[in-house]
């Protein structure tokens, strides 16, 4: 309905392969960026940053990472929490060990370390498929967290066993630790998400993305046309873990400030991030972000809804009701649109493009 595509023809392959080949989509994207970079900071307060925006963005980054592995390459992973933990602990060790190192570089190095760990735990994917692999990734999840818990070197022998983000600056602005302003942290995570989401989209639409999808759709045929399964899968594991690693670093350094391994627990991270990917839509960068929004906002909404409508219930009861509603919503959503927000978005877009026709 808002689309005016007549006359938007492509005379180069470059234009035809653009991420947003339609002018109206490009404008929409500009609008979204404008809102997130300019409008939101004008209105957001501490609560918005801390409770909603920053965790949403960080988890969206992790979801984009997991979607590369699970959505594009078809390898289900339940070890997201562990890979995030690797990123977080690596950042902690690097930034406390080398205080002079630029924190952004530390984040990226930590991502690389997570990628290396991801490759190791991706090795079984050559021989194990489907749920067997998913369960196998749980081995990574439990083992890695156990290591971080047991080996005191990782948390610098702190008696409480927690890691705490040291204050670090870029361009003389404090961006990590409890003293950093929420705006600064918001911008840091937002820039990371923007750049990484774009990079993910770029990889997904190139030959790399096609290799992943080929492996996902039919691994035998992919191999026969010359795609090396192990390399392709390991690269997906590496890149996915890199994303998760960076997200994990931001999780501690730009959001929680300090944490124990429990923060990266399967129930706190691995399942919710997988939810984000599924609810958002497998094989979609945009979907990952929408899914992250849904899964982060839903509990907040459920917590805040009863008081708003004047309902007084005990926190204990409310917690359980939330659980039920959350579960039901998930099931409902999967029934209504198993292909997630991305599909809904596509359908809506298609409807608008064909308006007033139904198809």
């Amino acid at each position: 309905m808002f689309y005016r595509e007549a006359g938007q023809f492509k005379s180069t392959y470059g234009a035809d392969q653009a991420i947003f080949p339609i002018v109206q989509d490009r404008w929409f994207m500009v609008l979204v960026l404008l809102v997130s970079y300019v409008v939101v900071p004008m209105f957001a307060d501490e609560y918005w940053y801390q409770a909603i925006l920053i965790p949403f963005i960080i988890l969206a980054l992790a979801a984009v990472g997991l979607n590369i592995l699970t959505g594009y390459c078809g390898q289900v992973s339940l070890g997201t929490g562990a890979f995030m933990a690797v990123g977080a602990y690596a950042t902690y060790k690097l930034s406390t060990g080398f205080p002079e190192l630029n924190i952004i570089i530390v984040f990226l190095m930590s991502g690389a370390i997570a990628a290396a760990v991801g490759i190791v735990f991706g090795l079984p994917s050559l021989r194990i498929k489907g749920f067997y692999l998913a369960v196998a990734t749980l081995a990574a999840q439990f083992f890695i967290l156990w290591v971080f818990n047991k080996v005191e070197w990782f948390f610098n022998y702190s008696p409480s066993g927690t890691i705490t983000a040291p204050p670090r600056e870029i361009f003389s602005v404090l961006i990590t630790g409890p003293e950093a302003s929420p705006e600064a942290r918001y911008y840091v995570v937002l820039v990371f998400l923007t750049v990484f989401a774009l990079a993910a989209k770029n990889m997904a639409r190139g030959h790399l993305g096609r290799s992943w999808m080929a492996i996902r759709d039919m691994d035998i045929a992919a191999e026969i046309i010359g795609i090396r399964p192990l390399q392709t899968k390991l690269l997906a594991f590496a890149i996915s873990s890199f994303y998760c690693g960076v997200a994990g670093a931001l999780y501690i350094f730009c959001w929680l400030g300090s944490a124990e391994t429990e923060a990266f627990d399967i129930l706190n991270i691995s399942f919710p991030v997988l939810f984000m990917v599924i609810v958002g839509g497998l094989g979609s960068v945009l979907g990952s972000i929408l899914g992250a929004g849904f899964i982060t906002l839903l509990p907040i909404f459920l917590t805040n809804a009863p008081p708003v409508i004047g309902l007084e219930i005990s926190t204990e009861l409310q917690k359980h009701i939330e659980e039920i509603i959350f579960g039901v919503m998930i099931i409902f959503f999967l029934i209504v649109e198993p292909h997630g927000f991305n599909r809904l978005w596509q359908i809506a877009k298609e409807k608008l493009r064909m308006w007033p026709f139904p198809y």
Partner: protein
Amino acid sequence: MSQERRIGDVILKVDNVSLAFGGVKALTNITFDVCEGEVRSIIGPNGAGKSSMLNCINGFYKPTEGIITFKGESHSQMETHQAASQGIARTFQNIALFKGMTTLDNVMTGRNLKMRKNFLWQSLYYGPAMREELEHREAAERVIDFLEIESIRKTVVGRLPYGLQKRVELARALAAEPDMLLLDEPMAGMNYEEKEDMCRYILDVNDEFGTTIVLIEHDMSVVMDISDRVVVLDYGQKIADGDPDEVRANQRVIDAYLGVQHD
């Protein structure tokens, strides 16, 4: 009116190849060769071991015995993905397309082997990765044009009718610019007109690009018209080899096909 096609030296030699699955012999001492630029058919009743033969040639199955020589390089064992990099492409009896991807993406995947820019360049997209991508898009478009599938370029292949999926699969194989193209029952399940079309495409590919074609069919009649030479398999053994007329006249072939249902 037609000019004589140039048929060159032997490009593929299958020497004494046998294949067994835990005691069950799928192929027994098969020997034959394929010359550059020819259309070579492997025919035989269902279960004769044709697909197994193809699977051996492109490294998907490892022969228990024997040697396969392709372009002068001998190998008894090879990794599946290596065949592709040596210039062998194939299609499948039960279409093996990437169903979640568009026609264009499927064809582009056929060119993946030729694309070299690493993931860092790709994550940037602009620059070398884009140049590479666009170059290959152009090549892919030529294949799309050749097989006349322009109108379904951006359709997800899972939604296409059977005949078109077969054509997309051929396009994907062709996009790799193979020296040798293995076609596994390219006309199975097609009606008469679709078969005729497919024959034309196969001949055109052979003509236009000089691609060597090895194709499998269980329906004799279709392949006889388009093949230069035919190998006949039955129960995993070679029972005849020669030009279509010889094969047609061969008593063992007639016996093997007697009572075999044609569709």
